[in-house]
């Protein structure tokens, strides 16, 4: 039986996640329980959603440097407007999705580098977040809190949510015709255009979808923390990019994997816990986190070479 290259690409992230998990269980047997798994992974749920959003943008060969501030902004909206006057909150979110679609259109029409546009937008989102919540506070909507702290039987919420996110996005990106177009734009922009599709429409749609997942990330985050501040998710920009790459995605060519991205987000979260359990001093932690990333990427590079050699044979 021939294993598809997609499966191989998923193999490394899944294996590294399993390895890290085994190491964490070995060091901290307490984690091997319903509650333990939930504590290990519940903060990975918003990161996974942000990673999916980043992955969508990356599938059309762009990069979103405003992901962290946008998720922070969404968290602030969720903790204020969405809680006090839900209609207004939803309206703001719809506006935010429209803004994302507009960013996609602008980037496409003016042929601007996405990095510059989104970096600029990051200041806009950051400013709006500070306007909404000048000092930390707000309250999570009761339903968001309920969803994030729900205790489903047998499998903890964090795992259920990760599987649902992976499943839904796998369907959208890998199985639906929109997903094929999206990856097509990333792979070969011109051929999609020649085939009679509206590339601008696909880009706008992709950005809108990314905005939607980023909003979900903000709501999930507030559901966990119970309140927000304007800087709550700044780390998500780099975490989401690292998650996509870790999960087998690539910067160009429309090569992305939704299941891999979720696994990548879980791996990154787990790496933090692993280092903390190892009692590594904070001065070394960022370096160690980077080392884990490099090891996984090096493994992938080696595997890519192997794949290529097999193809040429």
């Amino acid at each position: 039986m021939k294993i598809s290259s997609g499966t191989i690409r998923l193999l490394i992230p899944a294996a590294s996640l399993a390895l890290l998990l085994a190491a964490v269980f070995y060091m901290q047997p307490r984690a091997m329980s319903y509650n333990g798994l939930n504590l290990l992974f519940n903060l990975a749920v918003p990161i996974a959603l942000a990673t999916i959003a980043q992955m969508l943008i990356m599938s059309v060969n762009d990069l979103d440097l405003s992901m962290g501030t946008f998720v922070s902004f969404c968290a602030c909206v969720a903790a204020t407007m969405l809680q006090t006057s839900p209609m207004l909150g939803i309206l703001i979110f719809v506006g935010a999705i429209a803004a994302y679609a507009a960013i996609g259109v602008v980037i496409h029409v003016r042929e601007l580098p996405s990095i510059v546009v989104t970096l600029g937008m990051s200041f806009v989102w950051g400013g709006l977040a500070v306007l909404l919540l000048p000092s930390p506070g707000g309250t999570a909507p009761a339903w968001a809190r309920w969803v994030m702290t729900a205790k489903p039987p047998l499998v903890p919420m964090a795992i259920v949510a990760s599987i649902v996110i992976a499943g839904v996005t796998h369907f959208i990106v890998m199985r639906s015709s929109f997903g094929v177009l999206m990856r097509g734009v990333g792979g070969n922009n011109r051929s999609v255009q020649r085939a009679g599709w509206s590339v601008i429409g696909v880009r706008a749609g992709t950005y809108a979808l990314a905005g939607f997942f980023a909003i979900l990330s903000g709501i999930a985050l507030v559901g966990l923390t119970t309140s927000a501040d304007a800087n709550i998710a700044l780390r998500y920009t780099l975490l989401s990019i690292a998650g996509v790459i870790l999960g087998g995605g690539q910067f160009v060519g429309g090569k992305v994997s939704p299941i891999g991205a979720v696994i990548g987000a879980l791996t990154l979260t787990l790496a933090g816990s692993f280092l903390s359990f190892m009692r590594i001093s904070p001065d070394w932690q960022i370096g160690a986190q980077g080392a884990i990333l490099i090891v996984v990427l090096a493994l992938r590079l080696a595997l890519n070479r192997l794949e290529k050699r097999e193809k040429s044979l």
Partner: protein
Amino acid sequence: MDIRTMLAASVAVACLCSPTLADTSSKKIALSNNYAGNSWRQAMLTSWDTITKEAVSKGVVAAADPFTTAENQATEQAAQIQNMILQGYDAIVVNAASPTALNGAIKEACDAGITVVSFDGIVTEPCAWRIAVDFKRMGESQLEYLATKLPNGGNLLEIRGLAGVSVDDEIHAGIQAGVEKNPQFKIVGSVNGDWAQDVAQRAVAGILPSLPDIAAVVTQGGDGYGAAQAFAAAKRPTPTIVMGNREDELLWWKEQKDKDGYETMSVSIAPGVSTLAFWVAQQILDGKDVKKDLVVPFLRIDQDNLEENLKNTQKGGVANVEYSLEDAQKVIAAAQ
């Protein structure tokens, strides 16, 4: 009397002699810290180390491990606290990156039966204890001192901290309240010094030409030395500048004192407040009834204990005091 009752009796006697040693010796306490990038935080961690190492070696607690997040981010600290729950700590002492964004993780810890004590950067989650600094009182105390030193009053220059931070608002409110109580003083100018000597020096130098004679400068800490430099550069007489316990400020004060008997006072919060939080956590684990909101005394230096404090302050550091179990018990009793 059989062996068992004798043992029980001896244990009971031991408990009577040293109740704290017996009850928490198996407990583990963790410090969750969000930032270590300035002299104040470094001093805070060093104080924690000295006091808790001694406590562990004496068997007061089983462990007291400090953890600092690699980046100053609330989400990372939330993950850190959740890891501590998994590691089975009995109490978590936390200096929080955000007063609200950690509430979810802190609630998880409380639900797992863990005692959470926050200090300096406190959290709003009701299940946690808070050791807060009365910054307002800190501002008021400056005016009280000035009222005794300059009974005739005069013009004040106020140096504020970083705009938009709650600490700045609270100290400012205290100073305003003090001025209302002592109407012989009048604030004629106000600048933002951002708790940094260079910023304060620039800001004061900028506003000085437009000001009348200044009798005293009220400050927030980390800005007194810069203010003094600005006055010297403008060749204006040095007013009474309230200091903020930084080493450079105390050194300058000492020089002036030796030269012409310059008098002032210095006030700030001691980084050793982490050790107070440690003892409070230990007392809670010990089963003591402790109010959820405690107030930490701030560290004040006066003319007569200047030399002593300066000697104990590290170069480029902040005057510090490490708290003992008795200090913690006093703070707890004061809140009852």
